[in-house]
């Protein structure tokens, strides 16, 4: 019987983990230890519900309600001087908690501080676009949709960004295998020749970069070229072609290859 593998996370797993191993935590510090962050958090808390806030590796992390994201971003930009949205993406926690954690990485140049706004959404929950607050969210949200399938409401141009428009599936989900699902593996064949060609082409020559040395009409391995149209069968020995001019090598007048010696003793 085949061993059971979980389907909700098909990413690589460590082959061995000590069963008594408890992973340590990156230390979290109280927000009050930093005056600037404490003031920022107070301003956010005055208007919105904050479920958790701490400082980790010199940056403040604030967990908010996903419904408030647009208003929080507006507050950060207009009042708290966070003038850049450096990055925004999601993290797949579907297997463990049934949804995504979305983070917004903020930078304030005046305060020289970096802040991370985070929230948790269920898998089918949509989020509000912030691309009208920070223009850079435009592409970041498109990438988030492309990679995770997180639906963003109110985005001006919601299309896939890295994958082709007609792609199926979202590659960064933990359920998506590293080498692609069936759709991904047959994408080119399906698109160019149609699905019915799958059985004709077969999985072994699906790879366009594959080199077949018996294929005389396209490419053979370097040094093992065969004549155009020559018939070859699979059992034939390899025939490396030596590059040599017909008249022998230019400028070498008298060389008898039968008399030439291959030196084996390197100290000779």
């Amino acid at each position, binding site marked *: 019987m085949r061993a059971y593998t979980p389907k909700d996370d098909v*990413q*690589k*797993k*460590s*082959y*061995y*983990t000590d069963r008594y*191993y408890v*992973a*340590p*935590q*990156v230390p*979290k510090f109280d927000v009050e230890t930093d005056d600037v962050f404490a003031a920022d958090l107070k301003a956010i808390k005055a208007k919105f519900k904050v479920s958790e806030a701490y400082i*980790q*590796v010199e*940056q403040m*992390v604030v967990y908010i309600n996903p419904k408030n994201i647009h208003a929080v971003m507006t507050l950060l930009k207009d009042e708290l001087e966070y*003038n*850049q*949205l*450096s*990055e925004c*993406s999601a*993290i*797949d926690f579907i297997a463990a908690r049934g949804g995504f954690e979305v*983070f917004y*990485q903020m930078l304030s*140049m005046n305060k*020289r501080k*970096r802040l*991370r706004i985070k929230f948790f959404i269920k898998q089918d929950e949509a989020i509000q676009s912030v691309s009208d607050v*920070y*223009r*850079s969210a*435009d*592409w970041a949200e498109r990438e988030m949709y492309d*990679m995770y399938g997180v639906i963003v409401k109110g985005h001006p*141009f919601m299309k*896939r*960004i*890295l*994958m*082709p428009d007609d792609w199926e599936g979202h*590659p*960064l989900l*933990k359920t*998506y295998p*590293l080498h692609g699902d069936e759709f991904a593996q047959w994408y080119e064949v399906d*698109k*160019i*020749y*149609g699905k019915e060609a799958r059985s004709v082409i077969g999985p072994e020559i699906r790879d366009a970069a594959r080199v077949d040395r018996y294929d005389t009409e396209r490419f053979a391995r370097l040094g093992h070229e065969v004549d155009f149209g020559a018939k070859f069968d699979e059992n034939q020995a390899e025939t490396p072609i030596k590059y040599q001019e017909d008249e022998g090598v230019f400028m070498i007048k008298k060389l008898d290859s039968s008399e030439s010696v291959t030196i084996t003793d390197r100290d000779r």
Partner: protein
Amino acid sequence: MQQPNRLRPFFENITFDRDDNELVLNFGPQHPSAHGQLRLMLHLQQEQIVKSHPDIGYLHRGMEKMAENMIYNEFLPTTDRMDYIAASSNNYGFALAVEKLINVEVPRRAKVIRMLLLETNRLMSHLFWLATTALDIGAMTVFLYAFREREYLMDLVEDYCGARLTHSAVRIGGVPLDLPDNFLTDLRKFLDKLPENIKDYEDLLDQNRIWKMRMENVGTISKEMALDWGCSGPMLRASGVNWDIRKEEPYELYDEVDFDVPFSDKGDNYARYKLYMEEMRQSARILYQVIDMYAGTSPELMAHAPKFISPSKIEMMTQNYSLQQHFVLVTQGMRPPVGEVYVPTESPKGELGFYINSQGGPYPYKLKMRAPSFWHTGILTDLLPGHYIPDVVSIIGTTNIVFGEIDR
């Protein structure tokens, strides 16, 4: 008789009539001055662009997916393939992020060598930028000159790590090798001549009528627009924001060296060009100071952190426990603590950030690479409208985008 298939339908059945006379032009993805696989869908009124849609993804290799299936050390060489013009900067950004996560301090000699690599890479990247942009505009001579100097730097890096483009010259916790014997002398020789070389380029370009016409008041980015689009590096500094991560949030030894951050408030192509030239001079200035730092350092190259970083070769070969530890670290990989970290560094192109979310396993649970070029391509949506077709080439040139890190 035309043989139709799915890729070549009957074009007789498609009508191209439009109500207006707007033309849709596909620029790329195979275009010599698109700096890689950039496709721009440009809507034109005569020769003027009214709408632009950058289309990326033609070089997408799924590095973030690969990272989730690799141990940390295994992933490091993949970062070479992001900004392949300055590979060590990517290696460094990733290594620094992991070091922050596992809280490891790197020995001083390793820091000095990393500084040398980072600034050499910055020079290589800027020289490459100058060469290709000048070539796009039509200045062939500058291309040849700048590549000559870049070749010298590549030879230097080759002396150090054996590779010319994909260096992998930084390790998590330090550097793998000490400098070869004549590295610093050779570097100093190069730096002594660099000001003359930069002056040569400037003599060819600064007052060049064609260069100025193609560069001045073209591709002007306002301060608000640059901030809004998440621009960083020279793109941001040319628009009047004096923000350099090396200066503002110093990492490595940048707080010990003396250098200036050039910036301009013009925001056009020409301002960016002048900035790149000045940054090269500043890089040389940093390098001179770092060369002098090397002499006083003790010879350790890798941090001592037995839980995360392999021991030195000599320990491994003499002590049984070190060998076991190395074996575990190579086969299973290090297991950083549970937590997350975002570490920005100033790569030659701008803010290169690595966000790592670790759940305590040997593979990153999530790794997000914040590549500067991604946002510098996004800005083309708003920047190109109003410009003319020839300006597209010079604007793409000065944004200094590289597709390895846009598509990742």
